[in-house]
C-alpha cells in the first residue's frame, strides 16, 4: 500500500474545484476536521455542495465556508443549532439551498454509495413532507421510501491516529460519520493528530481500513 501522507493542507486539498460535492465528518463539533475545512478557504473552490450532519456554529469550520460564500447547497439533517447564525442568515436571505435528510437516511445514503448499491427502501420519512417527490412502495404492509446513494468528490474527515497506509482509528463519539464518508468519495482526506508506522495499530481495532483513504494530513493550528 502506498504512503498516504501529505505535507500540507494545500496538498491535501489538491484537485478541489468549483461545483464539487464535499462531505465533512462530524456531529456538532466532534469529528469535524476543522483545519482541513478552513483550509478550503485557501483554495479557489466556489459553488460547493456540502454533505454534513450540521451546518456549523459560530464563525469556525463549516460556518466559515458558508460565511465566505463558498457553498451553494448543503445536504444535512440538522442545520440549526444554538450558534448557527451564519447558516440561519443565509437561509433566511435565500442564499443557500438546503436538502434536509433524516440523520439515519443521510448516513445510509452515504453508505449506499460507498458500498456500490443503487438505492434502498426505508420506512423512515414515509407519510411525511420529506418523502415528497420520492417513490413510495408498500413492503410487507408498511410504506417505504426509495432512497438514492449519495457520493462525493471529496470527503474531509477527522481521526485520532493514522498509520502511513491510511488505516484510521477515531476518538470516542468523534467517530460518527467519518468511517462511512471514507467509503463514498473519490478523494478521501483524513486530518489526524498522530501518524504511526504500519503495524502499530491493532489490526483488530482498525475502524477505517487504509484502502478507503487517499491522503493523511497532520492537524495543525491555523495561522
Amino acid at each position, binding site marked *: 500500500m502506498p504512503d498516504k501522507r501529505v505535507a500540507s493542507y494545500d496538498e491535501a486539498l489538491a484537485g478541489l474545484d468549483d461545483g464539487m460535492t464535499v462531505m465533512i465528518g462530524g456531529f456538532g463539533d*466532534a469529528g469535524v476536521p476543522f483545519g482541513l475545512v478552513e483550509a478550503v478557504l485557501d483554495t479557489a473552490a466556489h459553488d460547493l455542495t456540502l454533505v454534513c450532519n450540521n451546518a456549523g456554529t459560530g464563525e469556525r469550520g463549516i460556518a466559515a465556508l458558508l460565511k465566505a460564500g463558498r457553498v451553494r447547497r448543503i445536504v444535512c439533517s*440538522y442545520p440549526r443549532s444554538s450558534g448557527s447564525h451564519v447558516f*440561519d442568515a443565509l*437561509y433566511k436571505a435565500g442564499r443557500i439551498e438546503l436538502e434536509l435528510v*433524516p440523520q439515519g437516511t443521510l448516513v445510509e445514503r452515504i453508505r449506499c454509495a460507498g458500498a456500490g448499491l443503487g438505492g434502498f427502501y426505508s420506512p423512515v420519512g414515509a*407519510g411525511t413532507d420529506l418523502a415528497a417527490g420520492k417513490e413510495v412502495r408498500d413492503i410487507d404492509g408498511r410504506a417505504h421510501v426509495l432512497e438514492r446513494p449519495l457520493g462525493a468528490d471529496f470527503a474531509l474527515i477527522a481521526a485520532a491516529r493514522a498509520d502511513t497506509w491510511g488505516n484510521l482509528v477515531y476518538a470516542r*463519539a468523534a*467517530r*460518527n460519520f467519518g468511517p462511512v464518508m471514507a467509503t463514498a468519495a473519490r478523494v478521501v482526506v483524513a486530518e489526524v493528530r498522530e501518524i504511526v508506522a504500519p503495524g502499530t495499530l491493532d489490526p483488530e481495532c482498525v475502524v477505517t481500513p487504509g484502502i478507503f483513504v487517499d491522503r493523511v494530513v497532520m492537524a495543525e493550528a491555523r495561522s
Partner: protein
Amino acid sequence: MNAVAIPGRLSRRQIAWRAARDFPRGACVNLGIGIPTLAADYITPDQDIVLHSENGILGLGPAPAPEAADPNLINATKQPITLIPGGCFFDSALSFAMIRGGHIDVALLGALEVAETGDLANWRTNDDRYAPGVGGAMDLAVGARHIRVAMEHVTRDGRPRLRRRCSYPLTAPGVVARIYTDLAVIEVDERGFVAREIISGLGLDDLVRLSDAPIIPADDCRVLEVPALSG
C-alpha cells in the same frame, strides 16, 4: 384556562421523573432533546437501563465535572457526558441500524403535537422563515420499539398539544404509544387518548378542555403522583 395557572402541574423534571419510572427493566433507551434528556437523572440502578445516543454511543453516563468534559464525548444534545464501564462507541451507520432495526426498546421524545391516531409532530412548525432541522427524530419515531413522548400539555400560550390531527408537519404517522405531560399520563391506542393518571385536583373534563381531542379515562385511572424535585 391558562396552563400556567393550573395548581399542582408538574415541572419539566417531574415529567421526566415520571417517564423514567416506566422504563422497563434492562431496556435500551434513547432520550430526545428537551424534557426527555432530563429523564437520565432519574433512572435508578436497579432498572439496569442502558442509554443510547444516536451519535454513536451506548452506555451514556452522567455529565462530567466541567473541567473533565471531553469535546469528543457528547450526547445528541451536544452536552458533555461520560461513558459507563461496558459502554462503547460505533459509527453513525451502525447507530441508525440499531434504531431502525428495532434494537432500541424505548425512545422518549419531545413533541410539538401528538394526534389521537398516534401521529407525531416534533420537527418543525409551519413557520417557513426558519430552516427546518430533523436530526434523528424521524429515524427514532419509526424505528424504536416503543415511542413515548414527554412534553407540556399545552403551549406557553395555551394551545393544546394533544390533537385530533396534528397541525404541524408529521415526523411519523401512528407511532406514539404513551404521553407524559405536566398534567397526565396518557396512552394512545385504537380508542384514541386514554388517561391513565391525572394530577390531583384536575378532573377529566378539565383535561379534555386543555386538549383538542376526546380523552377517555382508563378503567383504573388514578392520581399522577411525583415527588418534589429540585433543579
